[in-house]
């Protein structure tokens, strides 16, 4: 806080006195001397001088809290509405539930030809298959791209990056034809098998980025000890890339669980419905008069995603910040 800048002293002190920085900020800035200046009194990179009066800070937080409220309110309202009798749902805009109706959940659960647990199970099987598929196949491809030198590597790499941006619609029709000819429509295979074949370029790219960050000395040491690539991959790289694998698993979970388009196309038999298709069928069958039950089942389909978000947030943020997938 010494000799520098045209910043008013008091505000500078306010910044230093603010103390509480959160985890990542601590990592970034904790090492720095107070006030973020180096020995020569210059500002250190990564620590922006801030002109922030308490008043500004209050306004900012107020603004953010209001925005956060607006963002989250529809969700909270849906939760509240799932406990309201139908005739009250569209008369109560608040979150206070004046009259609790527990029946929405059991009613919705059994509204379709199969109980909702069946759809949850279908979705769970699909999710599990896709997670295993992505973890195995994408990590193998990523290892090759990140650590091996081979013919046509560059062109293959470009192709892989391109698949990330390719609209699925250009392959869905022939894929459907193909899968229907081998009798896979109304099974989970058309959705799981492509994952086993590393078609999710996002995750390959994410893992490549991660492997590039692992020091090469690790695998070179193993190679000197006589380990071949399968061993280096399995025993050196894989254990070190657990965070990237976790990110992949969580994103795959959320995306597969939320996927509507492909399951709508491939899973037309009600006993194969995933939760998303079931929810759509629910709208069709009840003509939307049973809002309470519809909201209740909507909540049921959102809970797994919400939990994955809650527990996987650290990985989600990292994954999204490094590769920009969403």
């Amino acid at each position: 806080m010494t000799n520098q800048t045209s910043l008013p002293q008091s505000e500078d002190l306010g910044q230093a006195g603010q103390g509480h920085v959160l985890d990542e900020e601590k990592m970034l800035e904790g090492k720095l001397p107070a006030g973020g200046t180096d020995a020569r009194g210059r500002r250190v990179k990564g620590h922006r001088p801030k002109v922030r009066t308490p008043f500004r800070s209050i306004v900012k937080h107020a603004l953010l809290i209001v925005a956060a409220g607006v963002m989250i309110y529809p969700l909270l309202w849906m939760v509240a509405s799932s406990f309201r009798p139908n005739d009250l749902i569209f008369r109560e805009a608040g979150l206070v539930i004046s009259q609790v109706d527990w029946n929405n959940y059991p009613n919705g659960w059994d509204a379709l030809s199969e109980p909702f647990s069946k759809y949850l199970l279908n979705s769970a099987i699909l999710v599990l298959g896709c997670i295993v598929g992505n973890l195995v196949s994408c990590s193998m491809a990523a290892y090759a791209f990140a650590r091996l030198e081979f013919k046509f590597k560059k062109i293959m790499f470009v192709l892989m990056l391109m698949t990330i941006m390719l609209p699925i619609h250009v392959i869905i029709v022939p894929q459907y034809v193909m899968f229907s000819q081998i009798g896979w429509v109304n099974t989970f295979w058309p959705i799981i098998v492509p994952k086993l074949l590393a078609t999710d370029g996002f995750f390959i790219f994410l893992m490549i980025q991660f492997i590039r960050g692992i020091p090469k000395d690790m695998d070179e040491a193993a190679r000197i000890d006589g380990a071949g690539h399968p061993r280096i991959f399995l025993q050196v790289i894989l254990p070190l890339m657990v965070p990237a694998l976790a990110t992949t698993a969580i994103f795959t979970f959320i995306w597969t669980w939320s996927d509507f388009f492909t399951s709508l196309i491939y899973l037309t038999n009600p006993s194969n419905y995933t939760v998303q298709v079931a929810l759509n069928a629910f709208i069709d069958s009840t003509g939307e008069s049973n809002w309470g039950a519809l909201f209740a089942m909507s909540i049921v389909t959102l809970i797994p995603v919400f939990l994955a978000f809650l527990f996987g947030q650290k990985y989600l943020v990292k994954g999204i910040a490094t590769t920009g997938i969403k």
Partner: protein
Amino acid sequence: MSAIAELQNLSKAKGRKAPAKDNKAAHIFLIPWTIGLFLVTLGPMAMSLYLAFTDYNLLQSPEFTGFDNIQRMLEDQRLHNSLRVTFIYVLVGVPLQLAVALGVAILLDRGMRGLSFYRSVFYLPSMLGSSVAIAVLWKQIFGTTGLVNQMLDLVGIQGIGWISDPNTSLGSLILLNVWTFGSPMVIFLAGLRQVPAMYYEAASIDGATKWRQFRSITLPMISPIIFFNLVLQIIGAFQNFTQAFIVSNGSGGPADSTMFFTLYLYQQGFKQFDMGYASAMAWLLVLIVGTFTAVNFFVSKYWVFYDD
């Protein structure tokens, strides 16, 4: 480095021969990927290109019809309308979403109290957003008796049926897209953190205002991130399907106002089983997305600055 920056660099750096030495191992590690590339991606792409020039209903074998599908696309008013709807969605929805994402990311700048709390709250909708449940919710809250109109009622405004009015139905879907600004926001936050503080330092010594600093330091420094988000969100927005489907019960209504291109493609391919036409449409989509991306890359030379 992002996938897009990587692509840009690849086009710049050439030469440097790979000392091909791990060929065998690489082939083994790439077995699943290679099979997938040919069987699930390139093969179907080639077939789709062929189908685009045929009449095919899945029951009889494809019949080659030359440019009939293209001719039909030129004359199909509903298709033109679906393009219009999709373009509006992309050209209005994406910039709005990114502006909000950037604005909030700047408010959430480093070292602020409660950062991770705010980030979670703003990020959550983009994780939930693609599911059917959220589209269901949207349909209800923007309905005639929905939450939005109840709120307006409290302040004495008579609301309309936002979803059932062709003038506002697309707008409510654009709003839904804005609501899911969380993932570009997270990318912006990561980008903002990379801006060296000394630049702001120097600028404030020179007496630059906050706005000036934003324009002359922040924007150029994070221009690669803006570009990246722009490319990705545009590609994503062109493919929006679930929300339009649910909100309109799969019809694209009212009055085709939410008939997104992908929804029309789905109707043609998987409702009418007009697979040839759907394939032709799919290639039109690839062409459009590809053109947008290419133009983006081209224009980026003039406004995206790389530090190195």
